[in-house]
């Protein structure tokens, strides 16, 4: 089988897709594997919607690894990244509910992380309550 060249489709808005990844898919992966999985999805010309969020050091590593790929993967200019968390407000019952859910799943499942290749996603406008994706025309 002919091996597809990595990053070949990057930059083509026509044909991009949105992939949803439940937290259970990355829960048992170590940091290296998580970042590898995320980057492989993004390099496949996909916008990734991840349930939950990465650890702070994983986010920093993701940025570092992304930078290392620019100039080495065709058409790759980096990523757009945004995280929105929903349990900052609410009553004690809500907080306990989210806390229990996070405890049971081992991650912050009440957060959503969106990651897309910069060749497709021009900007992610974020405010505390929403994320707006502006795509390259």
């Amino acid at each position: 089988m002919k091996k597809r060249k990595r990053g070949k489709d990057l930059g083509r808005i026509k044909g991009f897709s949105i992939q949803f990844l439940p937290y259970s898919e990355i829960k048992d992966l170590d940091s290296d594997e998580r970042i590898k999985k995320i980057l492989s999805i993004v390099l496949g010309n996909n916008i990734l919607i991840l349930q939950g969020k990465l650890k702070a050091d994983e986010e920093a590593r993701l940025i570092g690894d992304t930078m290392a790929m620019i100039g080495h993967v065709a058409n790759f200019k980096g990523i757009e990244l945004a995280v929105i968390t929903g349990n900052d407000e609410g009553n004690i019952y809500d907080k306990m509910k989210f806390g229990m859910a996070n405890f049971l799943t081992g991650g912050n499942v009440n957060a959503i992380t969106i990651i897309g290749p910069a060749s497709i996603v021009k900007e992610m406008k974020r405010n505390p309550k929403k994320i707006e994706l502006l795509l390259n025309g």
Partner: protein
Amino acid sequence: MVIKVFKNFIKSIFSKMFKSKEDIKLGFYGPPSVGKTSLANRICKDFTGEEIGKVSKIPHETRKVGFKEKVEIEYKGKKLMFKLVDTPGIATKIDYEDFLKYNMKKKDAKKRAKEATQGVIESIKWLDDMDAVVIVLDATENPYNQVNITIIGNLVARKIPVLIVANKTDLKKADIKKIESAFPEYEVIGLSAKYGENLEEFYESLFKLVK
């Protein structure tokens, strides 16, 4: 035995004395073009008469970590010795074509982009070595940028004290309150590094931070 205990006691006293005389490593972090180098230059000029790096309107002017050792900052009769560390702006994307808008040749733009990506990696690596960090943000921009949140998250995880500066308050669009509401757990100092406005409040907060 008694001599050994006494020797260790003297040794620990000396090592503590020596440690307290070490320079405080103060990092300047933030996205590109927010005025990190302008602020570091302002501080350096005030206390050493020299600058730490070059500033420019073209993003990613600082592409290597810059240092200034032995910067003794004096505030209200108190003195502290710092090592200032000016870091390249952290970004999640770098496109050489963005530099072409500044009349840069393609070859130079590509070189700048390559150096800028390496600068971001270097900035992230340096996070571990800081004693305290000043996060510089552009008060005219939306503070809910993931880069800002990622930097702060990493500093919190490493238990490194953080001070947020809302720079460019000389501009009409500046909105310090927006930055304060984005980061309610932190003290936010509004200032203009370009014109040296509100530096007194900055030094006061800096001394409180590293105390």
